[in-house]
């Protein structure tokens, strides 16, 4: 079994796999280690599939926009798997005036950064999507947002990277990093195996925290649970991504006809952070159904066939860490995706490949540094 490579990527999620693909495409020798039996076992398969710019932080927008303009449109062809990308736009719905205030604030911030997003009234909402509740009083509308299939996208990057010669080893849980002569070098696993590389990309979700701590780096983040559900197949209704001002739910209709929604009970903050426990709460699906019916009442007879969930890695300021580490040359962090990892996955993957090769980045990564977290006291 191969144990050395120019670049070792810890984490076989959408970010790790995308980085592996873009590196392999540039001829770099890559090895990916995934802790679980399955590739894409974490948050990459446990989200509602949004490919959005609206609602993103100023620091994330440049690469979110870059991905939507330059990577997503041709991704299916490039990877040889239909990732079900649709750029149908994103409506964020409000049911009362206070919701519209939240949306207006978001629209103002996004337009100041050049994003094409605006407020629409109840009538315009019905014109964009006639299947929504007539109780909706307004929404924000971003026509260039969309959605894709997160599970297929993650596996598509994996498949293509593997075809290009990237070595993937699953069932290898990384527990420790080691420096040699002041530079990153060794990656040790729970099974007692050691891998060696010139560069190590740490893209292991919340689990990245413990691993980074072994070389003296701590990234302030919290695990946060999110549940998803899927309905049986429905007749084709709409192509848009749906969100709501209160962030109770978000989702879309898939190519398959089923509706996928992500949500929560509102009680997540009290959960014990058991990262191996991926069971959802008994309250989750019921709460999600109530929230969905508020906005899309005609789905009331749609049957739920499955529910699932997983842990996100939320940083202190809800913005990812994508950064080289001054104290540990050769180590690159790509974690704390804060629930935004899927839609920006391809762009982050490309950016990581540029960091490894010291190429110009698609955008300035300084605001995404790991050492930006300071006490405000």
């Amino acid at each position, binding site marked *: *079994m191969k144990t050395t490579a120019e670049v070792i990527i810890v984490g076989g999620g959408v970010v790790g796999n995308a980085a592996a693909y873009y590196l392999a495409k540039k001829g770099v020798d890559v090895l990916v280690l995934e802790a679980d039996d399955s590739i894409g076992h974490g948050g990459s398969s446990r989200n509602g599939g949004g490919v959005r710019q609206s609602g993103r932080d100023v620091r994330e927008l440049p690469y979110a926009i870059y991905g939507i303009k330059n990577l997503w449109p041709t991704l299916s062809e490039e990877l040889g798997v239909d990732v079900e990308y649709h750029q149908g736009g994103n409506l964020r719905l409000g049911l009362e005036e206070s919701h519209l205030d939240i949306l207006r604030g978001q629209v103002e911030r996004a337009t100041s950064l050049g994003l094409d997003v605006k407020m629409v009234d109840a009538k315009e909402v019905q014109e964009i999507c006639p299947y929504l509740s007539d109780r909706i009083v307004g929404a924000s509308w971003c026509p260039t947002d969309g959605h894709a299939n997160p599970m297929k996208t993650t596996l598509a990057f994996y498949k293509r990277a593997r075809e290009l010669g990237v070595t*993937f*080893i699953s069932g290898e849980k990384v527990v420790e990093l080691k420096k040699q002569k002041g530079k990153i070098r060794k990656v040790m696993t729970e099974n007692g195996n050691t891998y060696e590389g010139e560069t190590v990309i740490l893209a292991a979700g919340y689990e990245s925290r413990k691993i980074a701590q072994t070389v003296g780096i701590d990234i302030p983040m919290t695990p946060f649970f999110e549940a998803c559900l899927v309905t*049986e197949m429905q007749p084709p209704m709409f192509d848009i991504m749906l969100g709501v001002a209160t962030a109770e739910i978000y989702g879309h209709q898939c190519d398959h006809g089923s509706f996928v929604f992500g949500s929560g009970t509102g009680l997540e903050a009290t959960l014990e952070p058991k990262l191996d426990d991926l069971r959802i709460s*008994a309250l989750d*699906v019921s709460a999600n*159904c109530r929230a969905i*019916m508020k906005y899309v009442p005609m789905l009331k*007879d749609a049957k739920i066939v*499955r529910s699932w969930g997983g842990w996100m890695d939320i940083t202190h300021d809800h913005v990812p860490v994508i950064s080289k580490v001054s104290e540990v040359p050769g180590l690159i962090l790509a974690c704390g995706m804060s629930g935004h990892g899927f839609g920006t996955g391809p762009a982050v993957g490309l950016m990581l490949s540029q960091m490894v090769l010291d190429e110009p980045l698609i955008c300035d990564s300084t605001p995404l540094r790991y050492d930006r977290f300071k006490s405000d006291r």
Partner: protein
Amino acid sequence: MVKVNDRMRDIGEFIPAKDDDILICRCEEITKGEIRRAVHDGIFTMEEMRRYLRNGMGLCQGQTCGKLVKNIMAKELKISPLELEPETSRAPMRPIEMEIYAKDGGNV
């Protein structure tokens, strides 16, 4: 059980077979050939297969095809079916309408 799995290991080439058109997952209409081909795309676990092809993700949630898929994958991977972890079952046990599922006494 989590075990080390080198995805670069040689499992041979995909060889088309006469029975590749047989429907294995009837809910989502996935054929034997699609499953066999996916193994050669690098899809080595039951969990990955469901995400890649949607097999076992329809109304019966794999209660009909789960064992068939496992055997096809094991044969293609040249391992015993016992080495493949079964897929995870999830709530609800039977498909339930949203309007009914919503009635758990929570806030409305």
